[in-house]
Every structure is written in C-alpha cells, then in structure tokens.
C-alpha cells in the first residue's frame, strides 16, 4: 500500500505526476503547471476561455481554479489554488469540509491523510487537488458512518484499534483498501500493508487484530 502511495514519487516523468514535490509551494509554478493547466481546466467546472487554453502551455497556473471533485459518490465543486493539495481541498476548501483525513506531517510520511483515489490508497497531502479532478475519491467518511459502520470500522471498534484516534481514519482507509485487494491476509501482510501509517499512542497490535478480524468477516 505504501508502495502504491509512493508510486507517484518514483514515476517522475509522467505528465501528471501526483507528487506536489515537483512544485514549489509558492505562487509561481510556471513550468510544471503548464501541462497541468491544459488537463485540468478542461475538467474543471469553469469554462476555460479560448485564450486561456491557448496560453495554457506557456503560462503558469495561478489564482483560483474551480474544480469538481467526485467524493464519496457526490460531485462537489470546490475552488482551489493550483498548489492546493487534495488534503487541503477536502479539509479547507470544500464547504462543508471533509475532515476525516487528517493533516499530520504534510509530507507523505505518516499516512493519516490517506484517501482512496480510484480505489487505491494515496497520501492526499502528496496529491494536488487539480490532479484529483475526474478521479473517484473515497474518504473515511465514505466508508461508513457512526450509525452505519463498515466491517473494517466495526472491527476497529471491537478490537480497540484506536486511542486518541487521530491516525485512525488513515489506518481504517488503508486497511479497507488492502482487504479489498487481499481479502485473506496473514499478519505479516497486514503489517506490510500498514507500514505507511504511523500511530503514536501505540495501537498497532490492535489495528492488526482488527484487520485480521475484519478479513475473516468479508
């Protein structure tokens, strides 16, 4: 899983590298933004003007961009900056926001911001919001609600797979995606699947138990 989330970072030469490391977090994103603009303006709700399209290959993307994000089965419009991360868009720009995915390290080390993009777990702090347009996004809120928990969420509750709970949305999302891929994992495989997520309270053993218990029920 962590490997999948890292894919973007390795494939440096892809045109739509989901890693924002290619961009300075500053305003000027000239070179990298050009290809992006072409792709995303077309997908955004805002009707790009002819001149904007003509200039797209030479001009930096800046200012507000209106996007449509497909989140938890809903089409949500959101206004972002080119540099806004998917995590930022979900947490800050969407109204009402989706604050299940947590901002913890903001640099792709901890996994608390994990969301599913076309079913695959990604660190949403490493994905630009503009790169998420047109993708099917699922956050922890989309996996189940307090009144209607998913099997994985129920297993986390039953096995005490959480303490302070700040890492929990990331673990729940990671484990949910992994069990879809491998419905009957070993403990070693669960550990491997969770290696991109940090917990400070020390819930790991119970996260593993929860994942294994949930797998038996699926």
């Amino acid at each position: 899983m962590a490997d999948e989330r890292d894919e973007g970072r390795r494939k440096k030469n892809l045109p739509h590298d989901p890693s924002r490391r290619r961009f300075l977090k500053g305003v000027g994103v000239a070179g990298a933004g050009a290809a992006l603009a072409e792709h995303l303006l077309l997908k955004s709700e805002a009707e790009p003007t002819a001149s904007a399209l003509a200039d797209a290959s030479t001009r930096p993307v800046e200012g507000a961009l209106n996007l449509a994000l497909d989140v938890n089965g809903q089409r949500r419009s959101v206004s972002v900056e080119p540099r806004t991360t998917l995590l930022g868009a979900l947490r800050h720009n969407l109204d009402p926001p989706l604050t299940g995915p947590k901002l913890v390290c903001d640099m792709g080390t901890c996994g608390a911001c994990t969301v599913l993009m076309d079913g695959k777990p990604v660190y949403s702090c490493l994905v630009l919001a503009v790169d998420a347009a047109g993708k099917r996004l699922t956050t922890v809120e989309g996996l189940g609600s307090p009144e209607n928990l998913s099997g994985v969420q129920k297993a986390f509750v039953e096995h005490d797979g959480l303490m302070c709970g700040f890492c929990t949305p990331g673990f729940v999302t990671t484990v949910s995606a992994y069990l879809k891929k491998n419905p009957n994992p070993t403990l070693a495989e669960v550990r491997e699947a969770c290696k991109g997520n940090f917990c400070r309270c020390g819930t790991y053993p119970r996260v593993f138990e929860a994942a294994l218990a949930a797998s038996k029920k699926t």
Partner: protein
Amino acid sequence: MQQQTPAKKKKVKVPRVVGGVETMVEIEVDDEGGPEWGPNDKHTLLNHRLTRVDAPVKVSGAALYTHDRRLPGMLYGRVVRSPHAHARVLRVDASAARRIPGVRAVVGATDEEVVEGSNKAAGEAAKKNRTEAGGAEAAAGGKVVLFAGQPVAAVAADTPEVAEDAVRAIRVEYEVLPHVVRAEDSMKEGAPKVTPDPNEQNVEEREKRGDAAKTEAAFAQCDVIVEAEYRTPILHHSCLETHGNVVEYRGGDAATVYASTQGTFTIPSDAAQELGLKESAVTAIVEHMGGGFGSKFGIGIEGMLACQLSKQAKAPVHLMLTRKDEFLLAGNRSGSWQKFKAGATRDGRLVALRATQYRLGGLGRGSQAGQPYIYTAANFYREVFSVHTHEDASRAMRAPGHPQANFAMESLMDELAYKLGIDPLEFRKKNLKDTAYHRQLDRGAREIGWERRNRTPGGGAGALKRGMGCAVGTWGGGGNNQCKVDVTVARDGSVTVAVGSQDLGTGTRTLTRAIVAEELGLGINEVAERIGDSRLGNANSSGGSTTSASLSPSVKDAATNARLAVAAKVAPLLGGAKPEEVKFAAGQVSAGGKTLAWKQACAALPSAGITAHGEWKSNLQASGVHGACFAEVEVDTETGHVRAVKMVQVQDVGLPLNRLAVESQINGGMIQSLGMVLYEGRVMDAQLGLQLNPGFGDYKLPGSLEIPELVPLIDDEDKREAVIGVGEAAIIPSVGALANAVFNACGVRVRELPITPDKILMGLTKGGQTA
C-alpha cells in the same frame, strides 16, 4: 458531622518519599463512609473489556478535533520561526506580507526575557510584546531569541496557502549571537551564556542527597564495582495532532477557544489574559484531542499568538502548528547524562552508588528521577544538575524523568549482575524491598520463558543472536480533589453525566459513562457523557496519570447520589422501601419483591428530572503502581540491526476500570519505549545550532514493521479496590528491559540511546564496549 461516634479507621497504601525514592507505605485513615467500589471481581461493567464509547465517531472520521474546527469567517494562522539558535532581532519587516491579498493580521512575538522556551515564559514574553497597533514591527529592536524555532511573529490569512506566503514575505534581520546546543559545550569554561537571566547559570545544581563520604568508603566492601556513563537524547512527544487552538473572538466581551489540550480548564485564564476579557467570559472546548503525552498544558505560545491575531482581525483564527513547528517549539522530553560508580557484594547486594545526574532540558530544567531509582542501596550519594542549552525547553513527557532514570539504573543493575555472575532477575529481587515486584518479575519470567535467555551474552552460533532482558518501574497515579461531576436523570429515563474533563485517547469518556451505567444498573449506551467544556464541572488537567483517580471517585459519588435520589422518588411505588434498599440492576429497579423497568421508574421523577452532584472521595482511589517488563530481541551481528521479538509487561493498577483500555495503554507504553530505545532522538548540528531531524522522515517513530509480539498483563493480584492511573507507569520498565535484552543477545552494552546499528557494530569490534 458524625462526631458522636468515633470515626471508623481503614488502612490505605500511600506513596511516601523515603531516601529520595517514592515507596508505598500503609497508613490508617478515617473511613469517610460513602460509596465504595466493592471487590474488583464483582463489577458488571467496570473491570470488563469495554469498547470505547467514542470509537464509532473516531473510526468514521466524524469526531471533531480542534484541527477540524471550521467557523464562519475563520482565518488560518502561521508562525514565523527564528532560524538561529541565539540571536538579537534587529528588525521585523512585515510590510510586504501585509500587501498580500488575504492577509488579515500580523503580530510580533519576541522578547529578551524569554528564558523558559516555548511554553510559559515565551508566552509571557509574547504577551508583554503584544502589538495591538504596531503589529510585528513593534517587536523589533533588541529582542533576543534563545532557540532555533522560537516564534518571532505570526500571521493570519484567509487560507493556509496565503498564510504561508505571508510567513515567507516577512523579513527579519538578526544579529547572530554565539550559541551552545551540547551539554559538554555548555559546561565548558567561557561557554556562551544560555539565558540572559543573571541568576541562571548554564549549569544549575538541583539536588545533592545522601552521604558522599560513607558511600565512598563503602566501595571498599564491594566485590565488584562498575563505573559507567549513560546517555539518552532529547525526545519528541510527536502528538499526531499538533499543538494549537481555534480562537473565536469577533470583538465584544466573550470568546470561545477550541483547544488541543490536556487541561480544558487551563485555557480560559490564559486566553482571557491575552484577549483582555474576564476569565468567565472565555469558554474552552476540547471535544476530541489527538494526543498530548505531557506536552499540552496551558494555551502555549501558539495559543497566545492565535489570541493576538484573532483580537487584531476580529475574526476566528485557526492556528495549529505545522509538523516542523511541533518539533522545534512544542517542547520535548529532556535528555540525560548519568555517571555512576556502583558496587555490590558477592551475595548480590547493591552496597554503594554514587551518581552524577545531568538533566538536559534545553532552556528548561529537565527531569530525571533520583538514583538509585526504586532500588535500595545501603549507601548512596547523588548530585543532580540541569545543563542548559539553546534549545526549546523540555516539558513533561509521559512519566517525566523515569524512562531516563530507568534506562541508566536498569542497565547498571544488569552490568553488576553479569559481573557478579548472578541471574539479573534474582539480583533485582535481592535489591527490591516491595514484594509486588517479585511477584510481577516471576510472572513475567514465566510468560516469556526467561530460562531460554542467553546464558552467555552474545553466545550461540550464527549471525542472528537472540537475548532477553528485564526491568521494573513505578509511578504514582493517585488523584486529587478537583473534579465536580453532575449526573442528571430525566423523566424519560435518559441519563447524562457531565464534567469538563478531557479524553486524550485514554478512555475518559468510556470510564465516565461506565461508572454511572454500572451504578444505575444500565447498559453503557444508556448513559451519555458530556466532557471537554469549561462550562461544565471543574476537572483537573491530565498530567501525572491523575485523571482516572481524580475523576472516577467524583463520578462514582455523583452516580451514587443520583441512584439514591431516584430511589427516594421511586420508593413509594415499591412498597415504601428505604432508598438504600432499592436495587438497580439489569435495567430494572426493584425492592420488596416489586420490580419496575428503568423507564417506568423514572416516570416517577419530577418533570425536571433529578440532578445529583459528586465530589472526590479519597477512599475510591489510591496511588503507587508497580510494573515489570521482559523483552526478547534479535540482533543481526552482521548489520547491527536489532529486532524486538516479544515484550511482556505485568502492571498493577488497583481496580482496572476498563481492561481493554488498560491493556492498550500498556501496549502503547511498550511501543513508545521501543521508539526511545531503538529509534528516536533529536539530532543537533552543534555548529549551526539547528535540529537536523525535525520531521517524521528523519525522526524515526516505531512503525508497523517494528512492533514485536506484545503481551500486556494486568496484575490482578493487586486487590486494592481503588482507581489508580496507569498511563505513565506503562512506559517505564520496558525501556530498561529492551536495552538489557540487546546486551544479552549480542554481548554489546550500548550506554547511549538510541541503540542504532552503528553502535552495535562498533561494540562488536571492540569486544562488547561502545565508545
């Protein structure tokens, strides 16, 4: 009140400091009467495995943490940090930042009287420096920063992105001053003075205790002597939710502060002072919080800055530290440097110990339990000092001072045991008076299979070598008289327990609910709890593992009073039974052969229902816990890599309110120890005065691949019918156990944490000794 009858007496165990060491002694106290827990094995909800009542909202992303608060018109705050460890701020120019569209407020925050790092005095300094009119510019001129990362200004803007732009646009001119970030350098003659306070030297004596001459003389009787120095680096709490607040002040005479804090009631006074409001006009909300571990008391410099920004902008300000901020300016666990000379006799008695202990707390005093820690040495002498450096001040961190002391003392005990040729477990028992440790050591030894340990450290064939170690630890965990709890029973049968306390992930919500539900004979989900709000009954801060032992007695008292109040109203329906004879069990209320369902019974209540109040009862809590840990590790002698294989920890806790949560706490303690022993440590560049690893990419936390098999065992031989906190106790004994297991496995005694592969390899090439 009951002076006619002689007060009933009862025996309780309380902690007392004897010879500088906290031990448990039994004393007689008045029996105040009132509620009692009853035998630990007779509970219907408590001492069972209760899933967390807040788990459903946490696993589904619905739980609102401070970081998740969104308010109309809310601005995002960011801090400008000093890039220098010691410097005079000559000028702060925020003019460019102010011109950026969307920047709404800029404040300065430096002062030469900043001496205590980020937590308190820096906040005080920020306050003195408040710049209502002049903004950041007014902060310029002669102010001195004392650590790299110290805030010099802060901004608030419409979006986080714009706030970051504003931080970059602020120009700060510094005159760089000489700094010192290593204890050895700070102690040198002519070293740069760390704080401007003329009364505070770089090296401050904290304590001298024991008899130096007698101790020195006693070494002559010893059959073996070990002289050794142990070191532990500064560690980071690494709360996943960073420090921060959302300050909602829109002008006027009231404000609300959403805070990520361990002390709901530490917030209003701090914020009120900053906002110029009455304390009673500020409400603190702590609905859920993402970890504290001792680092989150008071509003902090970040909260003060948020208040200033909110006041200037007349808009709510969301100021949560970034991860790098969190490493640099949100406190830390002090490092340690402990020098020992210790001697023991052939029969396994620790006869003499001389210790020089340095607490390395940066601008803070640091903490370190006095040696010989929980062991008994016939003769000892210790000198304790704080050594200051230009680094953020240390704060409390889970069992302040104990893991450092545990690592050093338990390593030393091990070294003596091996030198004497005595089983390290037996050597410990000979020097531990309290038999609770003996019992726990024996149980842990059975559980891990102590007889399988390496008889010769480093022995055995092959490159992968396994070994085992053990250690013990102690903590207080008693409560105090601060919690005011109300239980309301409505006429429709709904029950609410309310108190302003906070749940750090320790399970406060769950235990609060469970105590009331058990008392009223209800299911846990038939009671609702309201916590984390300063408008509710007062509660203490969650520090020193005091929450459970402070809160539970008050909850129990309130629940008992509620039960009696309901009984009094229902009794006429039950043949006029006395209230105390009415039984509450399994959702029914019964007496004199008559039974009512809970809701039927509540229909007899007045229209407003009943509200009962509860106060702390000392007899419902106790203090002083024991723990023993055994660890098994595998060392790859070709790479120096250490893998923890299994850890077993036996921990007493009086009445375990929720076994599932207590076990999780013990697991968490073992895992944080694992981080301390094998992975974590602040790395400083002495020349630049900067931290080299202020992020999770370089500061290694234990991850899923490193977690050994963990066996958390609650010591039910502890029959105390009293609540004791366990959060801090849980992190202590596993530190020494892991370090000792490494030695047993490969024969290398690493005396400086973390035990990284380079140190193992160095030791292997030097016949077991490290530099």
